[in-house]
C-alpha cells in the first residue's frame, strides 16, 4: 500500500455509524415518540377484487378512546397516487384492486380501543372475479383490473435490431426455452413505520419514518395533502434495511398518516406488523420469459427473440422502469446482430410489484445465463468458451446499438479472475464426467422399485458460472442529477449531507470518505447530517446503485470547491505562485516546494476569520443518454459495470436439498471507495441472490399471499450459504468520484443463475423455474401447501 496515492479511498475503515448501530443506540422510526401521539390501524378487506357498496363507520366511531376514523372523504388533495402512473388509491372508496388495499384508518392513543373499532367498521363489497394468473392478463377475454385503460397492459417495450428472420436462417441450432421466476419479498428486518407530526405553522407537516426516498415521499404527500412541496418535511430515521422496498409503500403510508394528522391535529403513527408488511408491501416482479436463440456451429450467436411478461400486480408502481432495464439488458453481455425483444408488464389482482435490488435484472440473467450454459453443452463447448466468443469486448455494440467505448469493457477480466480463483474448468469437467452417466431418473411412482434406489452417497457436487453487464444509475429512465452540501466549521469539523439517503448500505461512510480524501482529513471528522428534505435539494431517488457514482461525485465537487477556496487563501497568505499545488493529508495542508505547512483546523479558522466561504454545494448531472421508445435503440446508460460469479453447490440427490458451498464473486465496480462496505455489499448480495435461487417465493393463491411471516417465507440463514470469496477488478471510470462506479445490485443479480448452472452440472439436468426448492428439483414441479 506504500505507493497508494490515496490516504482514505479504498481503505478498510469501520463505518462512522457502526458504534450506534451495534450498541442499539441508533434510533429507528419506531424508537422515537411524540407527546400526544396516536396510533393508526388500517382497515383492509379480505377480498382481492370487488366493488365497494357501502362503508359504515358509525359503530366504530362510537368506541371510547377513538379519536377519528379516516376515509377517502378526509383526503384534501389527490386520493389517487403512484410513483410513475396515478392508479393507486390512498384510501379505497369505490373498488378493491388487491388484498393490500386500505379503506380506512382508525386513530387513537389507546391501541386496544383502536383495534376494537377496527372490527366494527362495516364494509359492503360486491365481489368481482379475480385475475391472478398474469400469463392470461392480455387474453382477449381477460378481466380488466383498471377498466378505464381498456387493457391490462401497463407498458410495452419493443427492441428491434437487425433482421431476426435472417438471423435464424443463418443459425445452425435454434433452441427455445421458457423460464419463470417468482415474486419475492425484500425481507428488510425493520417493518414499515411512519409518524406524521403537525407543525405550529398552518399546513406544515413533519414526517418521520423509515423512508427510502424522502423526495418521492414528499411529492406524494404534498399531492395528497394539496400543499406546496416546501410544506412537507420528510425526516428520515435510521433504516433497518430497504433493498428498494421502502419507496411506494412508505409514500402511501406517510400520506395516510398525514391525512389523519391534519384531521386530529396530533402526531399519528402507522407501524406495520410483519404480517401487514408482507401483505401490503410490493414485491419483486414474477417474470415469464420465452427465449428463442439461434447459434452457429462455431458458437456465434446469430439471433435472439425474447418475449417477456412481467406481473405488475394491481398497480403500475415501478413496472415501467423495472421492465425498461430488462429490455436493455435482456440479451446479456453478448453481441447479437439480430435481436427482437418485447417486454410487457401487466395488471392483475396480485400484490403489486415494484423496485427491488436488481430491478428487472435477476430474472433475465437467470434466463440468459442458464441458456448460455445449455447452448455450450449442445455445442460441446465449455461455458467459458461460449462466453469468450460472444461476450462484450472493448467497443462492442449492445442490443440497443450502443458502442461500449467510454469505459473499460472488463467482462473477460472478471470471468478470467473468477474462473482462475475457483479452478472452474477442472471442477466443471470433473463433475460433468462423474455424474452425466447416471442421469437423473425422477420416479413417477411413489414406491420405489429396486433399481430406483441408489447406493453410495447421495451428495453430488456442481459448479456453475454466470456473468452480467449492468447500466449504472438511472439511464434513460429520467433526469439523473444529484447534489451534496458541505459546511466546514472554523475548527475543521465538517457537516455533510447529500440529496441521496442512507438506506443502511453505507452511503454516509462512502461520502465521508470521499470528502475526507479531498480535504486530507479523517471520515471521523465528518458529521453526516440527518436526512431532511428541507436541508438539501432534491437529488432524485436512492436507487439503481447510483449513490457512490452520482452522489459521490457531487460530494467530491462540493469538497473540491471548498478546498480550492482554502488553497486560494493560502496562496495569498504564503505569497505563492497562482499555480501552486498543495498536499492535503493527515490533517495538514502543505506546500512541498516552500515547506509551508498548516493544520487543517488552523487553516479553517484563518479562513473563517478572513470571511472565506467554507460552505459549498456540489452538483453532478449525468452525461446524456437516449432511448428510442419505438425500436428500443439508443445509448441507454452512460457507463456500465461487469461481474462474474461462480457458485459451487452440493446437492443431495435424494432430498434435493442444495447447499451453496462457496461463491466466488468478481466485480468491476471501478475504483473501490469504501472497501469494507464493498465487501459487505458482495456478502449481502450473494446471500440474497442465493435465497432467490434456492428458497424464496411469495406464494400467491387467488391474489392472496399464503406465507405472511418468516416461519413460512424462508430466507437463508448464516449457515445456509458457505464461503463467499470477493474480488474486485478496479478499472477507474471517467465519471465517478476517483473512478468509482456501481456495486450494490450487480452483487445480487447473478447468483441465482450461477447456482442454477451449478445444479445442472451436479445433476445433469436443467431447471427453468425459480426457486430451486426441494420439490422443484425432486419432482420437476412446484408443489404448494395451500392454506385453508
Amino acid at each position: 500500500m506504500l505507493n497508494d496515492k490515496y490516504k482514505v479511498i479504498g481503505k478498510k475503515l469501520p463505518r462512522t455509524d457502526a458504534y450506534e448501530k451495534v450498541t442499539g443506540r441508533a434510533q429507528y422510526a419506531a424508537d422515537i415518540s411524540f407527546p400526544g401521539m396516536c396510533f393508526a390501524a388500517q382497515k383492509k378487506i379480505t377480498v382481492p377484487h370487488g366493488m365497494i357498496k357501502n362503508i359504515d363507520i358509525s359503530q366504530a366511531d362510537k368506541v371510547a378512546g377513538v379519536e377519528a376514523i379516516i376515509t377517502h372523504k378526509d383526503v384534501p388533495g389527490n386520493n389517487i397516487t403512484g410513483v410513475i402512473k396515478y392508479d393507486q388509491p390512498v384510501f379505497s372508496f369505490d373498488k378493491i384492486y388487491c388484498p393490500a388495499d386500505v379503506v380506512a384508518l382508525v386513530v387513537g392513543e389507546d391501541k386496544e380501543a383502536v383495534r376494537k373499532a377496527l372490527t366494527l367498521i362495516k364494509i359492503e363489497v360486491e365481489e368481482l372475479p379475480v385475475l391472478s394468473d398474469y400469463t392470461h392478463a392480455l387474453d382477449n377475454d381477460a378481466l380488466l383490473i383498471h377498466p378505464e385503460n381498456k387493457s391490462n397492459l401497463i407498458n410495452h417495450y419493443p427492441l428491434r435490431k437487425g433482421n431476426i428472420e435472417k438471423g435464424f436462417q443463418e443459425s445452425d441450432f435454434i433452441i427455445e426455452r421458457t423460464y419463470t421466476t417468482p415474486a419475492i419479498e425484500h425481507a428488510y428486518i425493520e417493518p414499515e413505520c411512519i409518524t406524521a407530526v403537525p407543525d405550529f405553522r398552518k399546513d406544515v407537516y413533519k414526517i418521520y419514518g423509515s423512508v427510502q426516498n424522502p423526495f418521492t415521499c414528499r411529492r406524494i404527500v404534498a399531492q395528497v395533502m394539496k400543499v406546496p412541496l416546501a410544506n412537507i418535511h420528510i425526516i428520515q430515521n435510521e433504516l433497518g434495511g430497504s433493498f428498494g422496498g421502502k419507496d411506494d409503500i412508505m409514500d402511501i403510508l406517510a400520506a395516510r398518516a398525514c391525512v389523519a394528522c391534519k384531521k386530529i391535529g396530533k402526531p399519528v403513527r402507522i407501524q406495520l406488523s410483519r404480517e401487514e408488511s408482507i401483505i401490503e408491501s410490493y414485491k419483486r416482479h414474477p417474470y415469464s420469459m420465452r427465449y428463442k436463440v439461434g447459434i452457429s456451429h462455431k458458437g456465434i450467436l446469430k439471433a435472439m427473440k425474447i418475449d417477456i411478461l412481467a406481473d405488475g400486480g394491481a398497480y403500475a408502481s415501478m413496472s415501467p422502469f423495472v421492465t425498461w432495464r430488462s429490455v436493455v439488458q435482456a440479451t446479456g453481455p453478448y453481441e447479437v446482430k439480430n435481436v427482437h425483444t418485447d417486454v410487457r408488464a401487466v395488471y392483475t389482482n396480485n400484490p403489486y410489484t415494484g423496485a427491488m435490488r436488481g430491478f428487472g435484472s435477476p430474472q433475465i440473467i437467470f434466463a440468459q445465463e442458464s441458456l448460455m450454459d445449455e447452448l455450450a453443452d449442445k455445442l460441446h463447448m465449455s461455458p467459458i468458451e461460449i462466453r469468450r466468443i460472444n461476450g462484450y469486448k472493448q467497443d462492442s455494440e449492445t442490443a440497443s446499438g450502443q458502442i461500449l467505448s467510454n469505459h473499460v469493457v472488463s467482462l473477460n477480466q472478471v470471468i478470467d479472475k473468477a474462473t482462475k480463483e475457483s479452478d472452474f474448468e477442472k471442477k466443471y469437467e470433473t463433475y460433468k464426467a462423474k455424474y452425466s452417466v447416471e442421469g437423473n431418473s425422477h420416479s413417477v411412482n411413489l414406491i420405489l422399485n429396486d433399481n430406483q434406489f441408489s447406493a453410495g452417497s447421495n451428495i453430488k457436487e456442481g459448479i456453475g458460472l454466470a456473468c452480467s453487464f449492468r447500466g449504472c444509475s438511472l439511464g434513460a429512465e429520467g433526469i439523473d442529477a444529484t447534489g451534496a452540501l458541505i459546511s466546514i466549521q472554523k475548527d475543521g469539523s465538517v457537516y455533510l449531507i447529500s440529496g441521496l439517503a442512507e438506506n443502511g448500505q453505507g452511503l454516509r461512510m462512502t461520502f465521508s470518505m470521499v470528502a475526507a480524501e479531498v480535504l486530507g482529513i479523517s471520515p471521523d471528522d465528518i458529521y453526516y447530517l440527518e436526512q431532511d428534505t428541507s436541508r438539501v435539494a432534491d437529488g432524485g431517488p436512492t436507487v439503481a446503485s447510483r449513490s457512490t457514482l452520482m452522489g459521490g461525485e457531487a460530494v467530491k465537487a462540493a469538497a473540491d470547491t471548498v478546498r480550492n477556496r482554502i488553497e486560494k487563501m493560502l496562496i495569498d497568505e504564503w505569497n505563492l505562485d497562482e499555480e501552486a499545488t498543495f498536499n492535503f493529508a493527515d490533517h495538514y495542508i502543505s506546500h512541498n516546494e516552500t515547506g509551508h505547512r498548516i493544520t487543517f483546523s488552523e487553516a479553517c479558522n484563518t479562513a473563517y476569520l478572513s470571511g472565506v466561504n467554507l460552505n459549498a454545494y456540489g452538483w453532478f448531472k449525468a452525461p446524456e443518454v437516449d432511448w428510442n421508445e419505438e425500436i428500443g435503440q439508443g445509448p441507454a446508460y452512460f457507463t456500465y459495470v461487469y461481474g462474474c460469479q461462480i457458485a459451487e453447490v452440493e446437492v443431495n440427490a435424494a432430498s434435493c436439498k442444495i447447499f451453496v458451498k462457496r461463491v466466488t464473486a468478481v466485480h468491476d465496480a471501478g475504483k473501490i471507495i469504501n472497501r469494507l462496505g464493498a465487501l459487505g455489499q458482495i456478502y449481502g448480495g450473494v446471500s440474497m441472490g442465493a435465497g432467490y435461487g434456492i428458497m424464496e417465493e411469495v406464494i400467491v393463491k387467488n391474489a392472496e399471499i399464503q406465507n405472511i411471516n418468516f416461519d413460512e417465507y424462508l430466507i437463508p440463514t448464516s449457515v445456509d450459504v458457505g464461503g463467499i470469496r470477493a474480488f474486485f477488478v478496479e478499472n477507474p471510470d471517467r465519471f465517478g468520484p476517483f473512478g468509482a462506479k456501481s456495486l450494490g445490485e450487480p452483487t445480487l443479480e447473478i447468483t441465482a443463475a450461477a447456482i442454477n448452472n451449478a445444479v445442472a452440472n451436479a445433476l445433469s439436468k436443467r431447471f427453468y423455474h425459480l426457486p430451486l426448492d426441494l420439490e422443484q428439483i425432486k419432482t420437476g414441479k412446484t408443489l404448494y401447501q395451500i392454506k385453508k
Partner: protein
Amino acid sequence: MKKHSFHKFTELRPALEFMEKNGAQSKIIAGGTDMLVDIRKGASKLDPVKHIVDIHDIQELRNIEIKGNVCRIGACCTFKEIGINEDVRSYYPVLKMAVDRIGSPQIRNVATIGGNICNLAACADSIAPLLVYDAQVRLCSVGDERIVPLENILIKPYKTDIHPDEMLTEIILPIPDKDWKYCFYKLGRRSGVSISRLSYAILLKTNKDKIEDIHFAFGALFSVPKRLLDLEQELRHQTISADLWKDVSRKVAQKIIEETGIRWSTPYKIPTLQQLFFTSLMDLT
C-alpha cells in the same frame, strides 16, 4: 388480542393444585416458543383457555439425573440443557443430535422437551429419538401419578392423552447398552432455524450379518411422531442386505401412505424418505 390471566409457579405442588382446580381452562407454558406464537395468532384452540400457567422456573423439573438403570429428564429442561448434558451425550446420542438442531440457539435456550411433547406438532423433533429409547413419561396430579410409555399419550396432532389436572413432570429413559448403532436424520428446507420436512431416528443392534434388534421412529411423516413396532419385530434375526433395507424403506413408505393418504407433499416426501432411509440403513451396516 385475547386476554388471559397469568400464573407463574416456582414449585410443583402449588402448580398441581392450581391445575386441579382450573386445569380444564388452563394452558401450561413451559418455554413458550409454540404457545406465544399461538397466542399472538389468536389460535382458536386457545378459545376455552382462561389461564396461562408458567412452569418454566420450577427447578424440580429442570434436572437430568441417572439413578439406577434409568435416566430422568425433567420436563422443563431446555434443549440447550439437554444438548450439553454429559449423560445425554454418552447414553442418548440420537436425542442429542435431535435437540441440537431444533430451531435456533435462542429457541433452544428456552424451549423445553416437555413442551415439545405436550404441544405435539407432527414435526416435534425430540419425540422420535425418545421413542427409539423406549421413553416413559411421568404424569402427576395432586395426590396421584402414573407412568406410561410415551407413545401412549400421543393421540393426534396437538392432542395428547394428558388429563386436565395432570402435568408432565419427567421423561424416564432406560439406560441402553452400548452396542447400539444409531442415526438421526433431519431434513429441513434450510440448514438453520428450520422446521423438519421429515426426520427419523434409528437404533440398530447387529449380530454378525443378522439384525439382533432394531428401533426406528419417524417425525413429520405420520400424523404424530411414531415408531413402527410390528415392522421392527418382523426384522429381528433377518439377514442384513441391501435388498432387505430397500424392502424396509418401502414398507415404511407404504405405512405412511396408508395412514395419511396422498397429500400435497406426498410426491416429494415418499420417494425422498425411501432413498434417505435406505442410505442411512446402508451407512449403519
